[in-house]
Protein backbone atom coordinates (compact mmCIF):
# COMPACT_ATOMS: atom_id res chain seq x y z
CA UNK A 1 0.00 0.00 0.00
CA UNK A 2 1.44 3.37 -0.89
CA UNK A 3 1.71 6.20 1.56
CA UNK A 4 -1.34 8.17 0.43
CA UNK A 5 -3.83 5.31 0.66
CA UNK A 6 -2.32 4.33 3.98
CA UNK A 7 -2.86 7.88 5.23
CA UNK A 8 -6.47 7.77 4.03
CA UNK A 9 -7.08 4.54 5.90
CA UNK A 10 -5.57 5.96 9.08
CA UNK A 11 -7.61 9.12 8.69
CA UNK A 12 -10.76 7.05 8.30
CA UNK A 13 -10.24 5.43 11.68
CA UNK A 14 -12.54 7.19 14.17
CA UNK A 15 -10.15 7.52 17.16
CA UNK A 16 -7.41 8.95 14.97
CA UNK A 17 -9.78 11.38 13.29
CA UNK A 18 -11.22 12.36 16.66
CA UNK A 19 -7.79 13.22 18.01
CA UNK A 20 -6.63 15.04 14.86
CA UNK A 21 -9.84 17.04 14.53
CA UNK A 22 -9.72 18.02 18.18
CA UNK A 23 -6.22 19.38 17.72
CA UNK A 24 -6.94 21.24 14.45
CA UNK A 25 -10.33 22.80 15.16
CA UNK A 26 -9.28 25.52 17.65
CA UNK A 27 -6.59 26.81 15.29
CA UNK A 28 -9.02 26.89 12.39
CA UNK A 29 -11.61 28.74 14.48
CA UNK A 30 -8.98 31.23 15.59
CA UNK A 31 -7.88 31.78 12.00
CA UNK A 32 -11.48 32.22 10.87
CA UNK A 33 -12.21 34.83 13.56
CA UNK A 34 -8.98 36.66 12.75
CA UNK A 35 -9.61 36.80 9.00
CA UNK A 36 -13.26 37.71 9.51
CA UNK A 37 -12.31 40.54 11.82
CA UNK A 38 -9.73 41.85 9.33
CA UNK A 39 -12.13 41.46 6.41
CA UNK A 40 -15.04 43.13 8.18
CA UNK A 41 -12.76 45.95 9.33
CA UNK A 42 -11.69 46.42 5.72
CA UNK A 43 -15.26 46.21 4.49
CA UNK A 44 -17.06 48.28 7.08
CA UNK A 45 -14.39 50.88 7.87
CA UNK A 46 -11.68 51.13 5.23
CA UNK A 47 -13.58 50.62 1.97
CA UNK A 48 -15.15 53.85 0.62
CA UNK A 49 -18.92 54.14 0.22
CA UNK A 50 -20.28 53.06 -3.15
CA UNK A 51 -21.24 55.97 -5.44
CA UNK A 52 -24.65 54.41 -6.17
CA UNK A 53 -25.56 52.53 -3.05
CA UNK A 54 -23.73 54.63 -0.45
CA UNK A 55 -23.06 52.53 2.64
CA UNK A 56 -25.78 49.93 2.16
CA UNK A 57 -23.57 47.92 -0.17
CA UNK A 58 -21.45 46.95 2.85
CA UNK A 59 -23.94 44.16 3.45
CA UNK A 60 -22.28 42.25 0.61
CA UNK A 61 -19.26 41.62 2.82
CA UNK A 62 -21.31 39.16 4.84
CA UNK A 63 -23.89 38.28 2.18
CA UNK A 64 -21.69 37.22 -0.72
CA UNK A 65 -19.27 34.96 1.21
CA UNK A 66 -22.26 33.26 2.86
CA UNK A 67 -23.89 32.70 -0.53
CA UNK A 68 -20.68 31.14 -1.85
CA UNK A 69 -20.48 28.93 1.19
CA UNK A 70 -24.11 27.79 0.93
CA UNK A 71 -23.35 26.28 -2.49
CA UNK A 72 -19.83 25.14 -1.68
CA UNK A 73 -20.97 23.24 1.42
CA UNK A 74 -23.73 21.53 -0.52
CA UNK A 75 -21.12 20.40 -3.01
CA UNK A 76 -18.85 19.07 -0.24
CA UNK A 77 -21.84 17.30 1.30
CA UNK A 78 -22.74 15.68 -2.01
CA UNK A 79 -19.17 14.49 -2.59
CA UNK A 80 -19.08 12.95 0.87
CA UNK A 81 -22.53 11.46 0.32
CA UNK A 82 -21.30 9.86 -2.88
CA UNK A 83 -18.26 8.38 -1.14
CA UNK A 84 -20.46 7.19 1.71
CA UNK A 85 -22.88 5.41 -0.62
CA UNK A 86 -20.31 3.87 -2.95
CA UNK A 87 -17.55 2.83 -0.54
CA UNK A 88 -19.60 2.79 2.67
CA UNK A 89 -16.98 4.66 4.65
CA UNK A 90 -18.32 5.60 8.06
CA UNK A 91 -16.32 8.82 8.26
CA UNK A 92 -17.74 10.02 4.93
CA UNK A 93 -21.27 9.45 6.22
CA UNK A 94 -20.49 11.41 9.35
CA UNK A 95 -18.87 14.25 7.40
CA UNK A 96 -21.77 14.48 4.95
CA UNK A 97 -24.28 14.72 7.78
CA UNK A 98 -22.14 17.25 9.64
CA UNK A 99 -22.16 19.47 6.53
CA UNK A 100 -25.94 19.88 6.51
CA UNK A 101 -26.47 22.10 9.58
CA UNK A 102 -23.53 24.35 8.69
CA UNK A 103 -24.80 24.71 5.15
CA UNK A 104 -28.27 25.48 6.44
CA UNK A 105 -26.80 28.14 8.73
CA UNK A 106 -25.01 29.86 5.84
CA UNK A 107 -28.13 29.60 3.66
CA UNK A 108 -30.19 31.27 6.38
CA UNK A 109 -27.59 34.05 6.63
CA UNK A 110 -27.66 34.48 2.85
CA UNK A 111 -31.44 34.70 2.68
CA UNK A 112 -31.76 37.04 5.67
CA UNK A 113 -28.98 39.43 4.66
CA UNK A 114 -30.15 39.31 1.04
CA UNK A 115 -33.60 40.42 2.12
CA UNK A 116 -32.13 43.17 4.28
CA UNK A 117 -30.04 44.36 1.35
CA UNK A 118 -32.99 44.16 -1.05
CA UNK A 119 -35.20 46.42 1.02
CA UNK A 120 -33.23 49.67 0.58
CA UNK A 121 -31.88 48.74 -2.88
CA UNK A 122 -34.89 47.26 -4.68
CA UNK A 123 -37.58 48.58 -2.34
CA UNK A 124 -38.72 45.08 -1.47
CA UNK A 125 -37.64 42.33 0.89
CA UNK A 126 -38.07 39.58 -1.62
CA UNK A 127 -38.43 39.01 -5.36
CA UNK A 128 -39.07 35.68 -7.05
CA UNK A 129 -35.90 35.84 -9.03
CA UNK A 130 -33.87 32.79 -10.04
CA UNK A 131 -31.09 33.24 -7.51
CA UNK A 132 -33.36 33.90 -4.56
CA UNK A 133 -35.73 31.08 -5.40
CA UNK A 134 -32.96 28.54 -5.86
CA UNK A 135 -31.39 29.67 -2.60
CA UNK A 136 -34.72 29.06 -0.88
CA UNK A 137 -34.97 25.63 -2.48
CA UNK A 138 -31.43 24.96 -1.30
CA UNK A 139 -32.55 25.70 2.25
CA UNK A 140 -35.42 23.23 1.85
CA UNK A 141 -32.95 20.62 0.61
CA UNK A 142 -30.70 21.16 3.63
CA UNK A 143 -33.69 20.94 5.97
CA UNK A 144 -34.84 17.79 4.17
CA UNK A 145 -31.45 16.15 4.66
CA UNK A 146 -31.39 17.12 8.33
CA UNK A 147 -35.00 16.03 8.84
CA UNK A 148 -34.51 12.67 7.18
CA UNK A 149 -31.34 12.05 9.17
CA UNK A 150 -33.14 12.83 12.43
CA UNK A 151 -36.23 10.81 11.57
CA UNK A 152 -34.66 7.37 11.06
CA UNK A 153 -33.72 5.41 14.18
CA UNK A 154 -30.73 3.45 12.90
CA UNK A 155 -27.90 5.98 12.56
CA UNK A 156 -26.01 4.33 9.72
CA UNK A 157 -29.18 3.74 7.72
CA UNK A 158 -30.31 7.31 8.41
CA UNK A 159 -27.01 8.65 7.13
CA UNK A 160 -27.23 6.60 3.96
CA UNK A 161 -30.83 7.64 3.24
CA UNK A 162 -30.00 11.31 3.82
CA UNK A 163 -26.86 10.98 1.70
CA UNK A 164 -29.00 9.63 -1.12
CA UNK A 165 -31.33 12.60 -0.77
CA UNK A 166 -28.34 14.97 -0.90
CA UNK A 167 -27.30 13.41 -4.20
CA UNK A 168 -30.79 13.82 -5.67
CA UNK A 169 -30.70 17.44 -4.51
CA UNK A 170 -27.50 18.29 -6.33
CA UNK A 171 -29.16 17.36 -9.62
CA UNK A 172 -32.18 19.39 -8.64
CA UNK A 173 -30.54 22.73 -7.78
CA UNK A 174 -29.42 23.66 -11.33
CA UNK A 175 -32.77 22.49 -12.74
CA UNK A 176 -34.62 24.77 -10.33
CA UNK A 177 -32.30 27.64 -11.16
CA UNK A 178 -32.82 27.38 -14.90
CA UNK A 179 -36.53 26.75 -14.71
CA UNK A 180 -37.06 29.85 -12.57
CA UNK A 181 -34.89 31.86 -14.94
CA UNK A 182 -37.00 30.76 -17.87
CA UNK A 183 -40.18 31.43 -15.90
CA UNK A 184 -39.03 34.97 -15.16
CA UNK A 185 -38.37 35.81 -18.79
CA UNK A 186 -41.89 34.61 -19.50
CA UNK A 187 -43.50 36.68 -16.78
CA UNK A 188 -41.58 39.89 -17.45
CA UNK A 189 -43.16 41.10 -14.25
CA UNK A 190 -40.54 42.56 -12.00
CA UNK A 191 -38.53 45.50 -13.22
CA UNK A 192 -36.16 45.38 -10.28
CA UNK A 193 -32.91 43.93 -11.41
CA UNK A 194 -29.93 42.58 -9.63
CA UNK A 195 -27.25 45.18 -9.89
CA UNK A 196 -25.11 44.72 -12.94
CA UNK A 197 -21.75 43.15 -12.27
CA UNK A 198 -19.92 46.44 -12.10
CA UNK A 199 -16.19 45.91 -11.96
CA UNK A 200 -15.47 45.71 -8.27
CA UNK A 201 -12.84 48.02 -6.90
CA UNK A 202 -9.75 46.58 -5.23
CA UNK A 203 -10.53 48.39 -1.98
CA UNK A 204 -13.76 46.39 -1.84
CA UNK A 205 -12.35 43.17 -3.22
CA UNK A 206 -9.75 42.33 -0.60
CA UNK A 207 -12.12 42.53 2.39
CA UNK A 208 -14.57 40.38 0.47
CA UNK A 209 -11.94 37.73 -0.21
CA UNK A 210 -10.77 37.84 3.40
CA UNK A 211 -14.28 37.20 4.72
CA UNK A 212 -14.68 34.45 2.13
CA UNK A 213 -11.50 32.81 3.39
CA UNK A 214 -12.72 33.21 6.97
CA UNK A 215 -16.01 31.45 6.18
CA UNK A 216 -14.11 28.60 4.51
CA UNK A 217 -11.96 28.12 7.61
CA UNK A 218 -15.01 28.40 9.84
CA UNK A 219 -16.75 25.71 7.82
CA UNK A 220 -13.84 23.30 8.09
CA UNK A 221 -13.50 23.94 11.83
CA UNK A 222 -17.21 23.54 12.50
CA UNK A 223 -17.30 20.44 10.31
CA UNK A 224 -14.49 18.83 12.30
CA UNK A 225 -16.13 19.64 15.64
CA UNK A 226 -19.51 18.32 14.52
CA UNK A 227 -18.01 15.19 12.99
CA UNK A 228 -16.14 14.57 16.26
CA UNK A 229 -19.32 14.66 18.32
CA UNK A 230 -21.15 12.48 15.83
CA UNK A 231 -18.36 9.89 15.85
CA UNK A 232 -18.39 9.84 19.63
CA UNK A 233 -22.14 9.23 19.65
CA UNK A 234 -21.89 6.56 16.95
CA UNK A 235 -19.01 4.69 18.57
CA UNK A 236 -20.34 5.00 22.10
CA UNK A 237 -19.71 1.35 22.87
CA UNK A 238 -16.08 1.34 21.77
CA UNK A 239 -13.12 1.55 24.09
CA UNK A 240 -11.71 4.86 22.81
CA UNK A 241 -15.07 6.63 23.19
CA UNK A 242 -15.37 5.46 26.80
CA UNK A 243 -11.84 6.57 27.53
CA UNK A 244 -12.68 9.95 26.03
CA UNK A 245 -15.75 10.24 28.24
CA UNK A 246 -13.70 9.44 31.36
CA UNK A 247 -11.01 11.89 30.36
CA UNK A 248 -13.56 14.68 29.91
CA UNK A 249 -15.05 13.99 33.35
CA UNK A 250 -13.16 16.76 35.13
CA UNK A 251 -13.08 19.37 32.37
CA UNK A 252 -16.42 20.92 31.48
Amino acid at each position, binding site marked *: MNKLTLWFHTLGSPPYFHRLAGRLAPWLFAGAVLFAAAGLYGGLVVAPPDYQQSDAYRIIFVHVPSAWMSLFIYFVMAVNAFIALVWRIKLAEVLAMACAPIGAAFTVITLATGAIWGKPMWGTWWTWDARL*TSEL*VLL*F*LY*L*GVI*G*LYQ*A*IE*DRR*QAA*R*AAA*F*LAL*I*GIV*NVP*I*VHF*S*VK*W*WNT*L*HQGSTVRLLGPSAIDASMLWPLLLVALATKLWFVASLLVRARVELLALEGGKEWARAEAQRAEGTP
Partner: protein
Amino acid sequence: MRYGTAASACFALLRRDLLLSWRRRGDALNPVLFALIVVTLFPLALGPEPNQLARIAAGVILVAVLIAGLLALDTLFRGDYEDGTLEQLVLSPHPLPLLLASKILVHWLITAVPLVLAAPLLAAMLYLPADVLPVLIAALALATPLLSLLGAVCVALTVGMRRSGMLLALLVLPLYVPVLIFAAGACDAAQAGLPFVAPLLWLGAALALALVLAPLACAAALRISIT
Protein backbone atom coordinates in the same frame (compact mmCIF):
# COMPACT_ATOMS: atom_id res chain seq x y z
CA MET B 1 -37.10 -23.58 -7.85
CA ARG B 2 -38.36 -21.80 -10.96
CA TYR B 3 -39.25 -18.17 -11.27
CA GLY B 4 -41.46 -16.68 -13.96
CA THR B 5 -40.14 -14.06 -16.33
CA ALA B 6 -39.79 -10.45 -15.23
CA ALA B 7 -42.71 -9.49 -17.47
CA SER B 8 -45.01 -12.03 -15.88
CA ALA B 9 -43.98 -10.81 -12.43
CA CYS B 10 -44.81 -7.24 -13.43
CA PHE B 11 -48.19 -8.30 -14.80
CA ALA B 12 -48.95 -10.24 -11.65
CA LEU B 13 -48.07 -7.19 -9.59
CA LEU B 14 -50.17 -4.91 -11.80
CA ARG B 15 -53.14 -7.25 -11.52
CA ARG B 16 -52.80 -7.55 -7.77
CA ASP B 17 -52.49 -3.81 -7.20
CA LEU B 18 -55.39 -3.02 -9.51
CA LEU B 19 -57.52 -5.67 -7.81
CA LEU B 20 -56.64 -4.34 -4.37
CA SER B 21 -57.52 -0.81 -5.33
CA TRP B 22 -60.73 -2.02 -7.03
CA ARG B 23 -61.80 -3.55 -3.73
CA ARG B 24 -61.34 -0.16 -2.11
CA ARG B 25 -62.57 1.84 -5.06
CA GLY B 26 -64.01 4.61 -2.88
CA ASP B 27 -60.48 5.69 -2.03
CA ALA B 28 -59.79 6.70 -5.60
CA LEU B 29 -62.18 9.61 -5.18
CA ASN B 30 -60.35 11.09 -2.18
CA PRO B 31 -57.75 13.11 -4.14
CA VAL B 32 -60.48 14.48 -6.42
CA LEU B 33 -62.56 15.44 -3.43
CA PHE B 34 -59.58 17.15 -1.86
CA ALA B 35 -58.79 19.13 -5.03
CA LEU B 36 -62.46 20.09 -5.27
CA ILE B 37 -62.42 21.44 -1.72
CA VAL B 38 -59.25 23.45 -2.34
CA VAL B 39 -60.65 24.92 -5.54
CA THR B 40 -63.91 25.79 -3.77
CA LEU B 41 -62.05 27.72 -1.10
CA PHE B 42 -60.35 30.10 -3.53
CA PRO B 43 -63.48 31.95 -4.80
CA LEU B 44 -64.66 32.17 -1.21
CA ALA B 45 -61.37 33.77 -0.17
CA LEU B 46 -60.80 36.01 -3.20
CA GLY B 47 -64.35 36.96 -4.13
CA PRO B 48 -66.40 35.69 -7.05
CA GLU B 49 -65.01 38.12 -9.65
CA PRO B 50 -64.72 35.99 -12.86
CA ASN B 51 -61.81 37.91 -14.38
CA GLN B 52 -59.69 37.65 -11.31
CA LEU B 53 -60.46 33.95 -10.89
CA ALA B 54 -59.76 33.22 -14.55
CA ARG B 55 -56.33 34.78 -14.20
CA ILE B 56 -55.26 32.47 -11.38
CA ALA B 57 -57.37 29.44 -12.38
CA ALA B 58 -54.65 27.33 -14.03
CA GLY B 59 -52.17 27.93 -11.21
CA VAL B 60 -54.70 27.12 -8.51
CA ILE B 61 -55.75 23.89 -10.23
CA LEU B 62 -52.13 22.82 -10.67
CA VAL B 63 -51.31 23.50 -7.04
CA ALA B 64 -54.45 21.71 -5.88
CA VAL B 65 -53.55 18.68 -7.99
CA LEU B 66 -49.97 18.77 -6.72
CA ILE B 67 -51.02 18.83 -3.07
CA ALA B 68 -53.68 16.17 -3.61
CA GLY B 69 -51.00 13.98 -5.18
CA LEU B 70 -48.65 14.71 -2.29
CA LEU B 71 -51.25 13.55 0.23
CA ALA B 72 -51.87 10.39 -1.77
CA LEU B 73 -48.14 9.58 -2.09
CA ASP B 74 -47.99 8.09 1.37
CA THR B 75 -50.25 5.19 0.34
CA LEU B 76 -47.84 4.10 -2.41
CA PHE B 77 -45.84 1.70 -0.25
CA ARG B 78 -47.66 1.96 3.10
CA GLY B 79 -49.80 -1.19 2.84
CA ASP B 80 -47.08 -3.28 1.24
CA TYR B 81 -44.57 -2.22 3.85
CA GLU B 82 -46.87 -3.07 6.74
CA ASP B 83 -47.73 -6.59 5.55
CA GLY B 84 -44.19 -7.41 4.43
CA THR B 85 -44.90 -7.56 0.70
CA LEU B 86 -42.39 -4.83 0.04
CA GLU B 87 -39.60 -6.84 1.61
CA GLN B 88 -40.53 -9.77 -0.62
CA LEU B 89 -40.35 -7.48 -3.66
CA VAL B 90 -36.88 -6.32 -2.66
CA LEU B 91 -35.78 -9.93 -2.19
CA SER B 92 -37.35 -11.20 -5.40
CA PRO B 93 -35.03 -12.30 -8.21
CA HIS B 94 -36.70 -9.94 -10.68
CA PRO B 95 -35.32 -6.47 -11.36
CA LEU B 96 -36.68 -4.26 -8.58
CA PRO B 97 -36.89 -1.08 -10.73
CA LEU B 98 -39.33 -2.80 -13.09
CA LEU B 99 -41.52 -4.02 -10.26
CA LEU B 100 -41.53 -0.57 -8.71
CA ALA B 101 -42.33 1.02 -12.06
CA SER B 102 -45.46 -1.12 -12.28
CA LYS B 103 -46.43 -0.17 -8.74
CA ILE B 104 -45.96 3.52 -9.58
CA LEU B 105 -48.01 3.05 -12.74
CA VAL B 106 -50.97 1.66 -10.80
CA HIS B 107 -50.64 4.37 -8.20
CA TRP B 108 -50.72 7.01 -10.92
CA LEU B 109 -53.75 5.37 -12.56
CA ILE B 110 -55.82 5.38 -9.40
CA THR B 111 -54.76 8.65 -7.77
CA ALA B 112 -53.76 11.00 -10.59
CA VAL B 113 -55.90 10.03 -13.57
CA PRO B 114 -59.15 10.86 -11.73
CA LEU B 115 -57.66 14.28 -11.04
CA VAL B 116 -56.88 14.83 -14.71
CA LEU B 117 -60.42 13.73 -15.59
CA ALA B 118 -61.85 16.14 -13.03
CA ALA B 119 -59.80 19.05 -14.41
CA PRO B 120 -62.59 20.34 -16.72
CA LEU B 121 -64.93 20.57 -13.73
CA LEU B 122 -62.33 22.42 -11.66
CA ALA B 123 -61.58 24.69 -14.63
CA ALA B 124 -65.27 25.53 -15.01
CA MET B 125 -65.51 26.44 -11.34
CA LEU B 126 -62.75 29.01 -11.77
CA TYR B 127 -63.87 30.36 -15.20
CA LEU B 128 -60.76 29.15 -17.01
CA PRO B 129 -61.04 30.29 -20.67
CA ALA B 130 -62.16 27.40 -22.86
CA ASP B 131 -59.16 27.57 -25.19
CA VAL B 132 -56.73 27.15 -22.28
CA LEU B 133 -58.43 23.98 -21.04
CA PRO B 134 -56.77 21.60 -23.56
CA VAL B 135 -53.37 23.03 -22.62
CA LEU B 136 -54.14 22.57 -18.94
CA ILE B 137 -55.17 18.97 -19.50
CA ALA B 138 -52.08 18.29 -21.61
CA ALA B 139 -49.89 19.85 -18.92
CA LEU B 140 -51.60 17.77 -16.24
CA ALA B 141 -51.28 14.59 -18.32
CA LEU B 142 -47.53 15.16 -18.58
CA ALA B 143 -46.97 16.56 -15.10
CA THR B 144 -48.88 14.06 -12.96
CA PRO B 145 -46.84 10.97 -13.96
CA LEU B 146 -43.73 13.05 -13.41
CA LEU B 147 -44.95 13.98 -9.94
CA SER B 148 -45.73 10.35 -9.15
CA LEU B 149 -42.29 9.19 -10.30
CA LEU B 150 -40.37 11.89 -8.40
CA GLY B 151 -42.55 11.42 -5.36
CA ALA B 152 -41.98 7.67 -5.38
CA VAL B 153 -38.24 8.20 -4.89
CA CYS B 154 -38.88 10.29 -1.78
CA VAL B 155 -41.52 7.92 -0.44
CA ALA B 156 -39.00 5.09 -0.78
CA LEU B 157 -36.66 7.01 1.51
CA THR B 158 -39.29 7.57 4.21
CA VAL B 159 -40.96 4.18 3.92
CA GLY B 160 -40.17 2.84 7.38
CA MET B 161 -41.41 5.87 9.30
CA ARG B 162 -44.67 6.02 11.16
CA ARG B 163 -45.32 9.75 10.86
CA SER B 164 -43.69 10.90 7.68
CA GLY B 165 -46.27 13.40 6.38
CA MET B 166 -44.53 16.72 6.92
CA LEU B 167 -41.07 15.33 6.21
CA LEU B 168 -42.28 13.81 2.95
CA ALA B 169 -43.67 17.20 1.88
CA LEU B 170 -40.31 18.80 2.68
CA LEU B 171 -38.38 16.22 0.66
CA VAL B 172 -40.74 16.31 -2.31
CA LEU B 173 -41.26 20.06 -2.59
CA PRO B 174 -37.86 20.97 -4.13
CA LEU B 175 -38.34 18.28 -6.76
CA TYR B 176 -41.84 19.47 -7.61
CA VAL B 177 -40.87 23.11 -8.14
CA PRO B 178 -39.59 22.79 -11.74
CA VAL B 179 -42.56 20.61 -12.74
CA LEU B 180 -44.99 23.17 -11.39
CA ILE B 181 -43.15 26.01 -13.11
CA PHE B 182 -43.25 24.39 -16.52
CA ALA B 183 -46.86 23.20 -16.25
CA ALA B 184 -48.04 26.61 -15.07
CA GLY B 185 -45.81 28.27 -17.64
CA ALA B 186 -47.57 26.44 -20.48
CA CYS B 187 -51.00 27.47 -19.19
CA ASP B 188 -49.88 31.05 -18.66
CA ALA B 189 -48.46 31.28 -22.16
CA ALA B 190 -51.64 29.85 -23.65
CA GLN B 191 -53.73 32.32 -21.69
CA ALA B 192 -51.60 35.21 -22.90
CA GLY B 193 -51.85 34.02 -26.50
CA LEU B 194 -48.17 33.11 -26.65
CA PRO B 195 -46.71 29.84 -27.99
CA PHE B 196 -47.10 27.23 -25.26
CA VAL B 197 -45.53 24.17 -26.89
CA ALA B 198 -41.99 24.64 -25.54
CA PRO B 199 -42.80 24.13 -21.84
CA LEU B 200 -44.95 21.12 -22.71
CA LEU B 201 -42.03 19.65 -24.63
CA TRP B 202 -39.78 20.29 -21.65
CA LEU B 203 -42.26 18.43 -19.46
CA GLY B 204 -42.31 15.58 -21.96
CA ALA B 205 -38.52 15.41 -22.01
CA ALA B 206 -38.39 15.41 -18.23
CA LEU B 207 -41.03 12.67 -18.14
CA ALA B 208 -39.02 10.51 -20.56
CA LEU B 209 -35.93 10.98 -18.40
CA ALA B 210 -37.80 10.30 -15.17
CA LEU B 211 -39.44 7.18 -16.61
CA VAL B 212 -35.99 5.66 -17.00
CA LEU B 213 -34.19 7.08 -13.98
CA ALA B 214 -36.84 7.39 -11.26
CA PRO B 215 -37.54 3.63 -10.92
CA LEU B 216 -33.80 3.02 -10.62
CA ALA B 217 -33.43 5.74 -7.99
CA CYS B 218 -36.55 4.49 -6.23
CA ALA B 219 -35.10 0.98 -6.09
CA ALA B 220 -31.79 2.26 -4.72
CA ALA B 221 -33.60 4.31 -2.07
CA LEU B 222 -35.78 1.37 -1.10
CA ARG B 223 -32.74 -0.86 -0.65
CA ILE B 224 -31.34 1.73 1.74
CA SER B 225 -34.47 2.02 3.83
CA ILE B 226 -35.28 -1.69 3.95
CA THR B 227 -32.37 -3.60 5.39
